[in-house]
Each structure stands twice: as structure tokens, then as C-alpha cells.
């Protein structure tokens, strides 16, 4: 039943998200919307690999940056007219990011835990350095992708809808994966990789595929980002904070759940954008993030979504106990059943 309520709530949220440009056409608002949608899919993509498999990557900025540069370089080299046609490069940019993920994963996925985290950071900085020094990336001067001459008030809308389409694709993709055998194998790897190998799971290929799919989605997000802001620089396209942000959004919402990263990004990205616009200090949100995550780690270490589930159960058990006081004869069975039936559902359902 919890699952059905969850799907209901998210259906409403998605319908509302789809209607945002119609309801509130204010460009500031839709601009925040574009970033929020990009981060919702990027956080879901991060969760779809790192959350499911337990391999915490802080280098997903590689794919975001690759996607951003891929769209820009191709659009410029092909002398594409500044029009909506450039959106067709978004999946292509995702594909290029996915291809980059193969050698990246081939190196990084051989090691585990802390070593994996450190290697993803190291590889990230290699890519940032390359973006600074290659000539086709424009070096530190960056590149300017073609900017469409759409009218001011609705300029953001096409970006918004493309980002929304990518988000819907992402949610369906990782929801499907969670229910597939591939998803089961990723979760098995998270719990005990060696045991999974001993049960015939081809762990390296499974991890690699998860990593590549995650890169594909993140690359598409980076491509939309580049086209939307109309410029790519190494320090913003390959931003070290990106990899941390998607991870923290997921931890905030609930790692390993479908709705956790969506909720995390939906709550945090607008705050970040608002603070940046309001106070024109690009890094103010980092302080807020730091404080927020301290609170999350202290009071709900598993993230919002699982904790809300716990509270619901707590309330139900509590109510059952009160009923027990009124009807002592039936009480034991009620409490016992509730505890036994509910504890296991905590992290396994999609909630």
C-alpha cells in the first residue's frame, strides 16, 4: 500500500512539473526549473549505479562535462544553426559520455570502497585538466554553443521540456532496472560482491553496464546544461562540486531508493539556485548544504524517504500499543504482527 501511495504522490508531482511553464511562466522560475530537472535525473543516474551497487563515485562530473563539451563541439564543428535542432545532439552527447565511461570504469571498477572513491576523484581531475589543455575544447577560454534567438519570456520552455523528457526517461530506466535481474545483481554486489561472484554473477560486466547507463543519463544532463547557459568552461562543465552534489542529494533523499534522489534534488536544487540568484554568491549554498547534511547524518542517516517510512511505522505500532491498553486480550497479536511484518520492508520497497 505504501508503494501505491508513493506512486500516486509522484504521479501528481510529475504532472505538476510538466505544467510548470504553463502555470508560472516567469523566466526566473523556469530557469530554476531547468536546473532542478537536470539534477533530478543526474542524481537518479548517480543512485542508479552508486546507490544500487554501493560503489560511491564522486567523479560523475566527468560525464556531465563530457556531455556539455560533446554537444558544444559537435554543434560548432557542424556549423549548426542556432535552433531547436541542436536538442537532437543531447542523446548523442549522452552516448559519448557513455563511451568515456567504458575505459573509466575499466580502470576504476577493479578496486572497491575508499580506493574506488579516490580513483573516481583522481580521474575527474585528469578530465578537467584535459579540458583546460586540449585545443578543441577551447582551453580555459571555453566555448560558446550557438544560442537560439527565441523570445525572452518563453526562452526557457524548450529547455525545460527537453530536461523533463530526459527525467521521465531516467526514472523509467532506473525503475525498470530496479525490477530487473540486472538490478537484483547490482544490489547483490552492494551487499557482498564476492558472494555474488560465487553464485555466477558476472560482477565486472554488471558494474560496467550500470556505470555506463549512469554516464549516459548524466551526459545528457550536461548537454542540456551547456546549451541552456550558452557557454562551457572547464571549471563549470567539469565542476568537482557536481559529483559531490548529486551524491549528497541522493543521501539526503535516501540512497538506493527510486524516489530518494528525485526528492533530494527537488528540494535542494531550487534552494541552491534561489540563493545564487538572490545573493549573487555562487557558493553560499555550500554552507547551507554542509549544515543540512550534518543534520541529516545526525538525525536520519538513511535519508528522508526511508526515515519517513520508519516514522509511519512507529506511529502505527504506537497506535496499536494504545489499542492494546484498551483491549488487552487482542493486543499482543496486533503489536507482534506489525513489528514482524514491517521491519523488513524498510529498505527493500521502492517507497
Amino acid at each position: 500500500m505504501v508503494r501505491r501511495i508513493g506512486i500516486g504522490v509522484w504521479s501528481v508531482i510529475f504532472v505538476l512539473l510538466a505544467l510548470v511553464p504553463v502555470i508560472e511562466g516567469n523566466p526566473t522560475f523556469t530557469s530554476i526549473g531547468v536546473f532542478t530537472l537536470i539534477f533530478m535525473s543526474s542524481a537518479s543516474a548517480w543512485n542508479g549505479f552508486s546507490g544500487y551497487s554501493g560503489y560511491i563515485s564522486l567523479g560523475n562530473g566527468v560525464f556531465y562535462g563530457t556531455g556539455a563539451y560533446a554537444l558544444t563541439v559537435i554543434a560548432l564543428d557542424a556549423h549548426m544553426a542556432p535552433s531547436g535542432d541542436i536538442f537532437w545532439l543531447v542523446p548523442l552527447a549522452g552516448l559519448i559520455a557513455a563511451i568515456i565511461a567504458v575505459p573509466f570504469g575499466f580502470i576504476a571498477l577493479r578496486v572497491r570502497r575508499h580506493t574506488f572513491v579516490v580513483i573516481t576523484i583522481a580521474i575527474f581531475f585528469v578530465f578537467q585538466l584535459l579540458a583546460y589543455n586540449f585545443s578543441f575544447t577551447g582551453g580555459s577560454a571555453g566555448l560558446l554553443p550557438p544560442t537560439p534567438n527565441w523570445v525572452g519570456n518563453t526562452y526557457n520552455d524548450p529547455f525545460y521540456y527537453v530536461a523533463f523528457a530526459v527525467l521521465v526517461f531516467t526514472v523509467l530506466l532506473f525503475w525498470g532496472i530496479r525490477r530487473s535481474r540486472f538490478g537484483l545483481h547490482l544490489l547483490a554486489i552492494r551487499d557482498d560482491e564476492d558472494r555474488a561472484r560465487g553464485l555466477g554473477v558476472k560482477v565486472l560486466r554488471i558494474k560496467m553496464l550500470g556505470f555506463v547507463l549512469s554516464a549516459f543519463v548524466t551526459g545528457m544532463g550536461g548537454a542540456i546544461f551547456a546549451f541552456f547557459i550558452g557557454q562551457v568552461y572547464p571549471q563549470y562543465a567539469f565542476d568537482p562540486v557536481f559529483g559531490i552534489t548529486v551524491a549528497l542529494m541522493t543521501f539526503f533523499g535516501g540512497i538506493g531508493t527510486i524516489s530518494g534522489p528525485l526528492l533530494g534534488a527537488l528540494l535542494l536544487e531550487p534552494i541552491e539556485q534561489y540563493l545564487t540568484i538572490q545573493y549573487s554568491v555562487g557558493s553560499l549554498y555550500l554552507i547551507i548544504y554542509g549544515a543540512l547534511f550534518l543534520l541529516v547524518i545526525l538525525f536520519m542517516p538513511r535519508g528522508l524517504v526511508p526515515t519517513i517510512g520508519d516514522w509511519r511505522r512507529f506511529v502505527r505500532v504506537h497506535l496499536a500499543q494504545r489499542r492494546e491498553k484498551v483491549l488487552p486480550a487482542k493486543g499482543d497479536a496486533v503489536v507482534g504482527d506489525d513489528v514482524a511484518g514491517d521491519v523488513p520492508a524498510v529498505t527493500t520497497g521502492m517507497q
Partner: protein
Amino acid sequence: MTELLVVDGVSKAFGGVQALSGCSLTLSEGSIGGLIGPNGSGKTTLFNVITGYVRADSGQVSFKGKQVTGAKPDQIFGLGLGRTFQLTRIFSRLTVLENMLVATQQQESWLRSVARGSASAAEHERAMELLAFVGLTRLAESQAGILSYGQRKLLELAYVLISDPAVILLDEPAGGINPTLIEEIRSRIIELNKSGTTFLIVEHNMEFVMGLCDKVTVMDMGCAIVSGPPAEIRADARVLDAYLGSVEEADDDA
């Protein structure tokens, strides 16, 4: 009876410690083999070499007449050789039923695993059958992390069984388990053996090993020192010296 599993002169050193030195062993099809020996004699290392978790320095392992020396754990399992671990290893954040499904359908291509559900109706049914077989049906939807130690041992046995392995290596199936549950595990092993599954069991519980196994191999200092029917092993002077020793010591090990 044909020899299903043949270990020939396997050696393995961890730094300066010679865990296995020229260890040889055979396991006949349809039998229940026992492997005993003092702690540190190399029993678990031998299991790890056979199942591909540890690469041997020298020597060979063949299974069903095929060389499997140096094969990876997933390949070994695919050939029909399953194992359990001394310290049980289950997927604690998956449900009991999901644990069962990890090992289903080894034959299919790994890429197809993306495009299919976690279990077909038949696999689901088979998983539930096996859970009933080990008495865990009631807990199918529970998170595996809440299982007791003994229940974990049963679950580990059950999820290895789902792929119908020809041979199962059990590492201390009776260790730390109450007598009733030991009896439960023993009867499951006998039942499976009757339907054709071959077993190799590492165990310190002498009563369990001697009552269950057709042939017992004794290891000491990384070598198989003697091998034979339980009655013979009990009386062997080398075994008494290396492992069984006096009556009191044997009790300690159990």
C-alpha cells in the same frame, strides 16, 4: 563411481605461510565426502582454490573431467559447483526471496538480465519450493539481515541449491548451530544426496562427519595425510596424532 572432482598436488602460500603444500583429493560422484583437520590445516583455503576465490601457486583442479585450475568463481559456479561459507554470507539488505533469486538462470547471457524481471514465474515457484525445503517460507519477504545464524546457514544452502549444482562444498554447516537444527541440516543433506547431489563437507563436529560421510579426508599442515571410510579414519594412528588426539581434545574441537 567416477571421480567428479579431482585436486592434484595443489600448493598455495600466503607470504611465508604455506597454507597448502601439494594437497590432493578426489570426490566420487554421488558421495558425501568429509574434510577434517586442525584449525589452520588448509581446509578453507582448499575450498577457496577449488571454487576460484584463490589462485593456486601450483597443482591442478579438475571438475567433471575438465581442467578448472584458475577459473573465476562465477565460471566454476556455472559449471555446477556451488559452495557455502564458514561465516555465512548472505545478501543482508535483500529479502530472503531475493537472495534466492540471485543465482537463478546462470545459462542466460548477462546482457539479457537487463531486459527481464528479477524472476520468471517458474523461478519464483522453485525459489519458494526450496525455501519450504529449508523451512524459511514464512520469512520469504523479510529482509535477510534479520535472520538468525542458523537460518542464514539454511538460506545459504537453499540459494546455492537453486541452480541445481552437481557438487556442493559445505564449510562447517554445523558450526555454531543448535542440535535440532544440525539434525535438520543433516536430513536435508541426506535427502539431496539421494537425489544425486555430491557433497564435500568441512566440519569439526566429529559425530556429524562420521555419521554422514562415505569417505573422510584428513588434512594437516596443508596436506591431505590420509583418506578412507570413517571407521578406518577413527583408528588411524596419524589422524589421532594430528587431529583427533585424546578423547578430551576431540571434544574441544566439537
